[in-house]
Each structure stands twice: as C-alpha cells, then as structure tokens.
C-alpha cells in the first residue's frame, strides 16, 4: 500500500515510471484548493490591512506623536 505509484524501488524500471507524487489523479482538485488558498490570502490580508490603517489614522490624530515623527524625519 502506497500513496504513490511506487511500491518498491527494487528492480523498478525507472524509464517506465511517470509521476511519483502522492495521490496522482487529484491534480484538478489540488488546483482548485490552491486557487482558493491564493484568493483567500488577498481577502484576509485586505481585512488585516484595513484594521492596521485605522490604527495608524488614530495615531495620526495625536499631535505629540506626529510631532515626534516629523522631528525624527528632519534628523534623517
């Protein structure tokens, strides 16, 4: 029993072997899972970024903090 098409390397005819990754035949399902994973990243990341921008905007309302940023910028 093997998840790949190889049961043993002993005496295996390498020229006759094609794909040897596990679960050959599930490529389309893997592609769909991959596409969902990729698109989910963009959606989740946008949410994280939005929250972060709100925090940054709140910080920008502090005159003291802004002043500190500008002073540091002038020193750079």
């Amino acid at each position: 029993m093997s998840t790949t098409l190889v049961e043993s390397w002993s005496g295996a005819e390498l020229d006759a072997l094609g794909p040897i990754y596990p679960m050959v035949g599930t490529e389309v399902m893997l592609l769909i899972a991959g596409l969902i994973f990729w698109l989910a990243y963009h959606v989740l990341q946008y949410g994280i970024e939005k929250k972060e921008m709100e925090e940054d905007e709140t910080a920008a309302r502090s005159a003291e903090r802004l002043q500190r940023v500008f002073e540091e910028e002038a020193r750079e």
Partner: protein
Amino acid sequence: MDTDIGALTVIFTEFYYWVTIPLMFLIHVGFCMYEVGASRHKNHLHTVMKNTMLIPLVTVTFFFFGWWIYFAFPNGPGITGGLTQSDHAVPWSELMGTHLGGPGPALESAQGYGADLGNAFWSRLNGVFWAAFLLFSWTAASIVSGATIERIRPSAFWILAVVIGSFTWIIDAAWGWHPDGWMVTQLGYHDAYASGVIHAIAGGFALGVVCVLGPRIGKFAPDGTPRNINPHNKWLVTIGLFLIYCGFWGFYVACNVPIIASGDIGAAEGTFTATTIYLTPTTLSAIVFNFLMSLSGGMLAGYVVSRGDAFWTYSCGLAGIITASAGNDLYHPIQAMLIGGVGAVCAYKLHFWVERRFKIDDPVGAVAVHGYAGFIGLVICGFMLWGHPATAGYHAEAAFITPWGQFLGACIMFIVLGFIPAFVVSKILSMLGMLRVPPAVELVGLDMSEEMREEADAIEVSQADIAEARRLGLLS
C-alpha cells in the same frame, strides 16, 4: 535521453538552470535592501514586506497560469494563429511535479509545444525552466515596487505584482522572447537579455502606476519644484544595487540555452553550441565580455553625469547593462561599453526631466533605469544589428532585425503591455479607494501601528523590571 550524450545534455541543462535560480535570488535581496535604504524610517517594515510578499504571490500565480501563458501565447493568440497546446505547462499536468519521464496515468506523452522532446525531457527541465522564468517575474514586479514606495497600499501593490509578474510580462515573453513568438517571426524582434521583455515593460508598468498613484506628500513644492527626499541609508541602497549586479549574472546565464545540437536548431549537423532564448548561436564568453563592458560603460558615464553621486553611479551601471542587453549576444565589447554609457546618460537625464516636467515621483529611478534604458537599448539594437537574422535556422522564412521592428517592439513592451495595463488596473483600484494609503497614514508612517505595539511591549517589560528592582530593594 535515449542516448548517453542526450541524457548528459539534459542533466547538464537541468543543473545549469538550477544554478541560475539562487543567483537570481540575489536580485530580490538587492531590491529589498535598496528600497528599504531609499525609504524613510517610518516606512521601513512596510517597504520590505511589500517587496517580500510578492515572492509567494507571484510564485503561486505563475504556477497556476503564468507558465502556461508562455507556451500557449506565442501566436498572440489571434495574430499569427490560435492558442498553442502545451500539456506540460498546465497546472494540472503530471509534468508539473515529481516525474521520472515515463508515461503517466493521464498523460502518456505530453502533446503540443515541445511534444517531440518527450516526457523524459520535460520531467527533468520543466521545474528548472519554470523557476528561472519565475525569478524573472519577481524581478519585473520588484522593479515596480521601488517606484511606489511610501504611499501605495500593499494590498493594491500585490494585485499589480500578480498582473505584471504572472500575466503581462509572460505574454511579452511568449510574443518576443520565444523562438516562435510572433514578434520574433514577424517583426524580427531581438532582445537576447531582456532590455524590453523585463526592463522596458516593468519601467512602463511602473510609470503607469505612479501616474495614477501620484507623488509622495512633500515631494513637490507648491510651484512644482521637486524636493529631494533623500535615501535614508545610502550605504544600504548601494549594497542593494551591488547585489543586483551579482544576481544579474544568473539573469544573463538563464537567458541562454547552454548546449544544443546544431542540427536541432536548423544549422549544419555535427557540433554543439550555446544559444540565446531564440535558439540563435552565441557563447557564454560573449555575454561575459559584454555584461562587464556595458556595466563599466554605464558606471563611468553615470559617475561623470551625476558628479559622483553614489546612488546614481550604481544605478547607471545597471542602466548600462540594461541598454546593451538586447544585443549583448552579438555586440563587440567596446560597442557594449559605449552603448551602456549612452543608455546611462539618457536614463539619468530623462529621470530628472520627467520629474520636473510631469511631476512624476519615482523615488528609486526605476522608470528611468529600467524603462527608458530598456526602450533605448531596443532601438539601438535595431540599428546595430540591422539585417542580422532574428530567427533560428529551422524557420523556413527567416526574419531579420531592423530599427523599425525594434522600435515597434519597444512600444509594445513599454506602452502596450507595460504602461496601459498598469494605468487601467491602478485607475480601477483608485476608484475603489484601494490604491493609496490615507494622507494621515502617509504622514505618520505606514509602520506606526507596529511601532506603537512595540512601544507598549517595551513599556510593559520596563515596568516589570522596575517592579522586580523594587522587590529586591534596588529601587525605592
């Protein structure tokens, strides 16, 4: 793989391309370093993460559709024919994974482009070819990254990175950087080391984005005079560019096919040669000569024209290579040096002229160094190599390099596949309010929320230390 020499050729080629991949990684390390060096302290983390995260995003999308586009689109489609079947490059192909070259359950033998090479060839070379092209994709997206620092939303940039990294640049590669691409066979387009197919398109794309994005706050005085927002760390910037030079060795070498039987490319039988991506003969020696001489031409001219400015001297070295790259498979080294010098001066002058005239804020000079230098390099190549065959010997009708073919090719790269898609996608993102960070965030810095968290952590630790010192009687 049927003969010993065939097997050795394939395995050597597999290793050859593998070596180019870690070398090209250095380009990305360099881009990250110089972008961080060029940004202000308040934006460092976002700057590095913006460039870093394009790596996984372009990688997965290049697996999903970029690689297939390269083999499917050489005819346009719709210009000289339809889509080309390319079984080995579709993301569900058995050859897009660990494969020993024999028949598979679903794919006994790949059909379509390269079918005559067989499963044994593609099983060894598909991954390394894919990765070498992928690293070019990262470079294209990374060039755009530098132009947008300190004001673009990372989420927007990453969408744009996928557009250029896994879509538009690989279309241009199918058209103009493929032995059977329609631009090569119809226009005689020649761009051996990617002046246009990477640099002009990425520069044009960057220009399209920054036109919509606008300049950083404070970049221009009310009367329109540009202000210098100097790199925060010039040392980091220059070392970053130095690393890009190092990575360029891998980039150049990956543009060649290292060994191929002369009969297979339509020449007389009986010898082996290295070729360009177009399967036209060249040598590694030629490109080593010309890489170093064009780099030198760019640096020498850049030092003089910028009066010794470190950032621009390094950038002009890059511009020198980029200008000469289209024809660096054939130029004489002194020609490469002079072309590099001309490209560097043009890139430098154009950067500041465009900045003043059109109020374009390109903090790292990416549009000039890659876009203008790449465009100019293509046109120069048209004159320098006028009449030289652009197509491999197996094409029944040869196409020849001409100034007009190169000029048209440069316009396709810079404007059609670079500027226009970037402008359109950026406009859409802008209309949705997704392109640029809010002005308050830009002023306070994109890293502010991280800095506040770190500040809170530091205060908490400090308070714990004070409490412990009191408990030990060290503080009253």
